């Protein structure tokens, strides 16, 4: 399959993403922010970095790039869009995902391993994992504190759209060890159609044992497998799981 990887001025993780998907045998094409052209991608990745210098707010200016019109249209039609770190921030600014990402509670830039509990298998990004699996994937951000109003949080939980939650290495509640102080320890959320995922940690930086782990590869394989199944992803309604 073909991954399209967005490149804005200031994006810094596009080569890592391309390398990671190539490890699983997939093609990667770069998508320039000025072109509203997804180049036939099966899945669009909005990678990490500091698009447009993160000026004003992270992702605030990137969301108006011509490429993002094509991404929004693709997502509206059910296309897979995967925002990682700065990509998550852009998706929130573009209203493709609810909520916002603010300065870490510690006020520090955190670049360290994090442990993520898979909270749902009913998504193309986590279908290959088991609910309750703990993935070791690094974070690298200064503004990853997820916030949303209480009603939005309730909806996300009820619809099982919190895909990943920060936990301790043993799977217990992360508590004070949260890298950013996100509400409900949220590390990644899904859109209503479950075809858009935003997450702060970097799975592409956890794809080789040499680099300290390959838990991120489980997510890339999930996406590929989801697309292989009749070229369509698992929609929320097609999954028998009862939301909590």
């Amino acid at each position, binding site marked *: 399959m073909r991954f399209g990887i967005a490149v804005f001025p200031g994006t810094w993780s596009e080569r890592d993403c391309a390398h990671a998907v190539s490890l699983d045998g997939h093609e990667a094409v770069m998508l320039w922010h000025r072109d509203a052209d997804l180049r036939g991608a099966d899945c669009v990745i909005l990678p990490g970095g500091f698009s447009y210098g993160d000026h004003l707010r992270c992702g605030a200016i990137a969301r*108006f790039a011509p490429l993002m019109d094509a991404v929004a249209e693709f997502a509206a039609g059910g296309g897979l869009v995967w925002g990682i770190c700065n990509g998550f921030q852009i998706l929130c*600014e573009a209203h493709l995902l609810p909520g*916002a990402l*603010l*300065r870490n509670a510690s*006020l520090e830039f955190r670049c360290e391993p994090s442990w993520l509990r898979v909270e749902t298998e009913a998504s193309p990004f986590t279908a290959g994992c088991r609910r309750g699996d703990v993935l070791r994937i690094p974070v690298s951000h200064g503004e990853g504190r997820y*916030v949303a*109003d209480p009603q939005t949080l309730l909806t996300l939980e009820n619809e099982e759209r919190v895909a990943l939650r920060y936990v301790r290495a043993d799977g217990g509640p992360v508590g004070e060890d949260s890298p950013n102080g996100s509400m409900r320890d949220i590390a990644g959320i899904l859109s209503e159609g479950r075809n858009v995922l935003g997450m702060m940690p970097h799975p592409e930086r956890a794809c080789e044992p040499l680099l300290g782990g390959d838990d991120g590869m489980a997510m890339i394989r999930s996406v590929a497998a989801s697309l292989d199944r009749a070229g369509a992803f698992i929609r929320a309604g097609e999954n028998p799981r009862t939301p909590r």
Partner: protein
Amino acid sequence: MTVFTAEVVVTLRPVINDPQGLSVRAGLRLLGFDGVVSARVGKFIELVVEAEDEAAARAMVTRMCERLLCNPVIEDWRIDSLRALEAAT
């Protein structure tokens, strides 16, 4: 056309936790300002715009706030001042 200056203030909504503000408050207390109850950090944006009249300028700045300068999920905005600089020829 007239040139106007507009001063826009963007603040975090009251319900949003502001660790930067808490840090500023702690710093002020460290300096002996025991009376400081709260500190919240926001943004100040000074704009120069050209418009037909003040109403048009205000409408334009309002659209700017709604579209880009403020994220309504987390922020509130207000126009603190809007005044004509000079009448262009």
